[in-house]
């Protein structure tokens, strides 16, 4: 059974890391602009073993060294942060650029909005950044404490560009915050509130699954011309270890990633749940021997095979596992493309089910009349894809999320967070339908 540490989804070798799909090297982009070429995608590039907090620290360090306007701030940031993501940055870049704030989340985010709104003469950002103000990288110590800043994010940051007709923006703002459960955080240290942000048009929400992803997606978020809330799954800070390229690179926002290809069921997830889905898929092929679970799996797969009678099918279903990565705006076309093969959909996350990301995706898949078909042949016809996805479904969409309780109760945490066996059950239910 794979743990987070031994997950096959993590890049354990330099070669795997450098071949990360969609990776964009900063020097390659500069070369392209200059019409020169230096390093190829893999030769001459180094990687280093990092856990997630080290990868985030590395990204912050690159952001600070490549852009003089960049500042990093938040509660307890100067001594390294409670999760060590800013360790040594104050010493390296000075307290004017890396500093503690008083304990006020609305103050922290509001400050970032103001800084990002100012056309900055300091900026010499190498990537993106044109027409952007100062680069403000704020930290909210736990996402559970982001609510005093929600007004700032929703009523100021998300509306800044829109209400000024594009004259002003706070695209330089990135708000980092630890999210999700570690298993014993209780009501105020275990929440996954991304669902509350789904209606905040103008903001982006990003949740990485690993060190390599965290570095690339964080640098993307920092350089993206839109304000981004970057949520870091806490349990991965130490447990997820990967070979991470040491140079400057980005991974695209708004793009989901297919982690394992399959043709029988699409599983969409993000953050910590990625690993639980991997474990559940492992259980599907390796149920604990001699247990009721083994019989349950056998029976369900028997039903699945019977339902596929007459079709050319293997004896075990293959699962397409998708990491959403960007939650808002998320990559619906990729989900629909996957569904056009699998016709079955399971969505997994820790946050509450009602109003959550899963229900949003389920709703988007099923509301085919919400998009007008395009006549532009170079564009994907998302409207048609939505209608076909819905009409092609072979089972109801299943969403496995946290329960609709007001938070994650400490004593019940193990039965709140969707774990591998609950996800296994979801896989079986959708497959055998």
């Amino acid at each position, binding site marked *: 059974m794979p743990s987070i540490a031994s997950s096959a989804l993590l890049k354990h070798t330099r070669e795997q890391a450098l071949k990360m799909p969609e990776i964009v090297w900063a020097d390659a982009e500069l070369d392209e602009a200059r019409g020169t070429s230096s390093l190829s995608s893999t030769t001459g590039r180094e990687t280093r073993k990092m856990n997630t907090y080290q990868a985030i620290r590395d990204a912050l360090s690159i952001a600070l060294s490549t852009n003089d306007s960049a500042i990093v701030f938040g*509660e*307890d940031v*100067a*001594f*390294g942060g*409670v999760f060590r993501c800013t360790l040594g940055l104050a010493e390296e870049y000075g307290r004017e650029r890396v*500093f*503690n704030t*008083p*304990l*006020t*989340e*609305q*103050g922290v985010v509001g400050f970032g909005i103001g800084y990002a709104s100012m056309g900055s003469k300091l900026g010499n950002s190498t990537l993106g950044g044109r027409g952007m103000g100062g680069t403000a990288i704020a930290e909210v110590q736990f996402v559970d*404490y982001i609510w*005093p800043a929600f007004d700032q994010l929703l009523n100021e940051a998300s509306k800044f560009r829109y209400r000024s007709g594009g004259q002003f923006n706070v695209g330089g703002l990135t708000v980092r915050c630890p999210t999700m459960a570690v298993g*014993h955080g209780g009501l*105020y240290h275990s929440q996954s509130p991304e669902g509350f942000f789904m209606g905040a048009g103008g903001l982006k929400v990003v949740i990485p699954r690993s060190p390599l992803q965290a570095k690339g997606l964080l640098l993307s978020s920092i350089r993206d011309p839109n304000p981004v809330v970057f949520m870091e799954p806490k349990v991965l800070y130490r447990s997820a270890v990967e070979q991470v390229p040491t140079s400057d690179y980005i991974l695209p926002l708004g793009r989901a990633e297919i982690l394992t290809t399959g043709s029988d069921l699409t599983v969409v997830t993000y953050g910590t749940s990625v690993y639980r889905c991997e474990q559940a898929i492992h259980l599907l092929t390796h149920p*604990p021997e001699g*247990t*009721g*679970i083994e019989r*349950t799996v056998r029976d369900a797969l028997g039903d699945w095979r019977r339902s596929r009678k007459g079709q050319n099918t293997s004896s075990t279903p293959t699962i397409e596992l998708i990491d959403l990565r960007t939650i808002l705006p998320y990559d619906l076309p990729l989900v629909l493309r996957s569904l056009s093969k699998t016709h079955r959909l399971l969505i997994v996350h820790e946050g509450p*089910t*009602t109003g959550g990301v899963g229900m949003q995706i389920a709703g988007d898949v099923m509301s085919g009349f919400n998009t007008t078909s395009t006549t532009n042949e170079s564009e994907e016809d998302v409207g048609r894809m939505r209608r076909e996805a819905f009409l092609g479904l072979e089972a109801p969409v299943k969403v496995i999320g946290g*329960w*609709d*309780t*007001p938070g994650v*109760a*400490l*004593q*019940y945490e*193990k*039965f*709140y967070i969707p*774990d591998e*066996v*609950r996800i296994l*059950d979801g896989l079986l239910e959708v497959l055998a339908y």
Partner: protein
Amino acid sequence: MLRRASSTLRPLINRISSLSTRSLGRLPNTQSPIVSKPHFFNSVTGDSNELIPAFRLIDGTGVPLDGAGLPELDEAFARKLYENMQLLPNLDNILYNVQRQGKISFYMTAQPPLPMTMSRPQGKTNACPGVAYALRRSPERSNSVAACFFGEGAASEGDFHAGLLLASTIPSPVVFIARNNGFAISTPSSEQYHGDGIASRGPGYGIDTIRVDGNDVLAVLAAVREARTRCVEQGRAVLVECMSYRVGHHSTSDDSFAYRARSEVEDRKRIDNPLARFRLFMETRGWWDAQAEEELKTRHRADVLKAFKRAETQSRWELGELFTDIYAGEEPWNIKEQRKELGRLLKKYGEDWEPWRRELQKYKNEGRDLIKE
């Protein structure tokens, strides 16, 4: 033409302006005296070089300061105070170690042992005025006040400012008690505020305020008693800022020597120890001695261990409690559905899935309450 008009009007303008200076006198919305020299200020004491004084009754050796008016206090009450104060470090020591052994997930230390309780303060400072207003409106509790405890870090939240503003504007009897222990996790108070502590904010909201030596339990007692009296009499909030120093780590997740010197902490413990100061005070009155100290430590240790053992062996509530107390009244369909879903899953996998089987044993009825449904 314009020039002619203005020269004609000049005497009239002069007359109006001299009249208005006299008749205006005060500005709208304030009774401020009028001055003709610019006066910037940055102090609530009236002198920017002078800090808000701190109220102290006994010195480092427990001896009352000259002219100190000690609060009314008999031997029994003094002993009770001391015993409660002494409980906190004992509790800290034991639970800190217990956490290190992995028996509890997290512990937040209570030191320094001020006569205060811990709370989750960030949101509560906002709710206290409403609590106090409800007390005011309850005839049988018109003599009661709300007490709101928080640290200097929590006082940076907008909630604190909103709480003070409402407690004074909509007169509400709250005693706000700030424990300024110098650190909010790693952030020293020097980076938490630039003004004269938390006390300086009280007058801004029209609130009677006092700063106290928080390591002097007698000064805290006297100040809070007086605060309570004012609170009841005026029906308005009072702010007490207790100055102290956090000798413990913020919590079991914190290693404070990453941001302050160990020697600084040890010095503090030795030089200005609230327990030692009060103990010396009691000893000079013959209310306490080494034997009492030894007995107390033994008793506290036994009490804490007994309470911990009892808590440790107690099973958790039924797993179904996960879904209770979400709403009063009719339970909505989604909660019903989710309770049933968990029951179905437990029935199907509870025996066979080892992590669940182990976890279920911790609950009363081991999850059967959900399976039955």
